[in-house]
């Protein structure tokens, strides 16, 4: 195994350890099985929080060395440990309850789990030999990471010459941290970091939804999300699209579970993932606006929850302000076309074809199988229930509606974005990935109550929507 591969594995192990400390602080770790279940969440929390801090460190004009990365991990972990001690959070002392293998549901779940693991092993092998990156990757995403690695900071001289100079820097920062742990700018092996992000995302999905969804249904959709063709095809191309999609979907999953269960630690996870979504790509802010708008609409009958929701969202947004100050104070090319408002009025004829493009891309079977239609059907049926089930359905449908309109707005306001569905002429084929992954992530949560409430009245069912065995 090369130094590069070992470096990526070591870094992700460190992120996981940092995330475990964070989880211990905010929720406690009950049993060893609970700890294993939370590994995906720990990885993603560690990755998002440490990389976010690293971006702020770089924006502050400081050099990012390997030692600084270790210090940043400690900066995340130390207050979490202090909180855990103060709040007397539990640490694992027993193994916990293993699932009964005699149950047919458990056996089916185990089959889907085994297939998902096998597919992830296959994806890992593809990452180990990955040889292709896209134009955006070699034009600016990876050169920014190389600059951070080689020159130690945000090299203004180089950034000024690159396309997308003002694009958020979470991915280049994460790549640069990988280079530090690899011991060199081992670009082909960056694909392994993308593999860890996807594995962490889907493991987090399983852990976050497990108290709400029966295991066989959950693992069916984890496997389904893993094999989405355009996800697999684009995963290793070195762009920030999947990075922003992954953090956006995790924000939505934390939020959905918080709406369902109201555990305070979920808001911490939501805030960390939201901050990473802002820092990953320009579209991140658009997706966050859609998600928060969807949450506000979904909880209109329970406005007490708006305050914590909006407070965490604003705190997450605040972390993106230093980057805006950095690039705008240096007069770098802005992240929106200067005349986009005028373009809206002069391009009214693009509205209808823009909708057609977005819908075609969202529902193309060869790209995304049936993720969006299935989740839409389940959500529409879920609206006929009351309480929390309806809230989750409304959250999904409102976020999707706002998201479709947001993507339409991109096509409408930028005449340079072509009205076809080709990857090289439009960002929309990549951008719809967020909404598709959101669909695959929330689908089991939307379907679960439909299967559970056959013989119950609407009112009774909604109040009993809790963890299935």
């Amino acid at each position: 195994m090369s130094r590069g591969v070992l470096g990526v594995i070591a870094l992700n192990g460190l992120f996981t350890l940092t995330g475990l400390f964070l989880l211990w602080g905010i929720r406690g770790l009950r049993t060893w099985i609970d700890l294993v279940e939370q590994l995906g969440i720990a990885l993603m929390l560690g990755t998002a929080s440490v990389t976010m801090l690293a971006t702020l460190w770089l924006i502050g004009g400081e050099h990012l060395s390997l030692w600084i990365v270790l210090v940043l991990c400690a900066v995340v972990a130390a207050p979490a440990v202090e909180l855990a001690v103060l709040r007397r959070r539990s640490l694992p002392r027993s193994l916990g309850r293993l699932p009964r293998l005699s149950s047919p549901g458990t056996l089916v779940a185990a089959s889907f789990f085994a297939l998902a693991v096998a597919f992830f092993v296959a994806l890992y092998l593809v990452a180990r030999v990955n040889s292709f990156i896209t134009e955006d990757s070699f034009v600016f995403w990876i050169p920014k990471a190389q600059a951070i690695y080689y020159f130690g900071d945000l090299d203004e001289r180089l950034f000024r010459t690159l396309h997308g100079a003002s694009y958020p820097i979470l991915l280049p920062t994460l790549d640069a941290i990988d280079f530090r742990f690899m011991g060199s700018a081992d670009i082909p092996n960056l694909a392994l970091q993308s593999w860890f992000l996807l594995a962490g995302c889907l493991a987090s999905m399983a852990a976050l939804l497990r108290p709400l969804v029966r295991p066989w249904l959950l693992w069916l959709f984890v496997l389904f999300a893993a094999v989405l063709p355009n996800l697999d095809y684009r995963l290793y191309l070195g762009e920030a699209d999947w990075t922003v999609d992954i953090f956006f979907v995790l924000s939505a999953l934390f939020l959905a579970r918080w709406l369902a269960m109201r555990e305070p630690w979920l808001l911490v996870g939501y805030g960390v993932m939201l901050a990473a979504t802002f820092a990953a790509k320009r579209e991140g802010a658009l997706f966050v606006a859609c998600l928060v708008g969807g949450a506000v609409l979904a909880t209109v009958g329970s406005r007490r929850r708006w305050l914590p929701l909006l407070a965490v969202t604003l705190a997450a947004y605040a972390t993106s302000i230093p980057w805006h100050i950095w690039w705008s104070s240096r007069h770098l090319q802005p992240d929106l076309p200067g005349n986009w408002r005028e373009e809206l009025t002069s391009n009214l004829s693009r509205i209808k074809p823009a909708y057609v493009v977005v819908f075609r891309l969202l529902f193309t079977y060869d790209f995304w199988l049936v993720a969006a239609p299935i989740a839409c059907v389940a959500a529409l049926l879920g609206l006929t229930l009351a309480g929390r089930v309806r809230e989750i359905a409304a959250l999904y449908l409102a976020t999707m509606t706002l998201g479709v309109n947001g993507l339409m707005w991109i096509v409408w306001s930028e005449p340079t974005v072509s009205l076809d569905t080709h990857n090289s002429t439009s960002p929309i084929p990549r951008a719809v990935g967020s909404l598709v992954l959101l669909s695959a992530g929330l689908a089991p949560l939307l379907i679960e109550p439909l299967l559970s409430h056959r013989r119950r009245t609407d009112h009774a069912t909604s109040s009993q929507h809790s963890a299935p065995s």
Partner: protein
Amino acid sequence: MRPLRQVHVAGVRFAGGVLCVVTVAVVLALQLPHRFEWTKSAYDDNSWRSPVRRLIHTGETYDIPTDFQEAALTYVPPRSTFAVLPPPSVEVAQKGYGIPPLTLIELPFWMQFLLLPSRMVDTAHAQYVLCFACNTDPWVNRVSWIWKNDAGEAIGKLNSP
């Protein structure tokens, strides 16, 4: 009537939920073999490449020759400065050397990416020049050519004034 209607709606919901699950299960059953085949072919197509060939493969897909990229990595020292010298015109590139226009667009970006931490600068400030089917006549007395191939590519070190 109301309980009957509720039972009916609950039945529709249940049927809808089952239909969603069955649809996803059928799609998975049909797709999973193809997805595993895709991973196998992606692995087989790339596993023969050395680390350097993995790095330069994207450049190859833009018709930037393998030997030119390898020579650039070999002869342009890290943290030096270089300039890319393109062909005299798109027509010359296309008719004389069979270089497509897209290659000329991507070439400087690719070489900057490939050779970082060396910096791409204008020719007045460069220590090295990467000639890509360029006209070498103006450079005869200013450059010591350290690598050349038969396809019109060369790498030279600018002589001290």
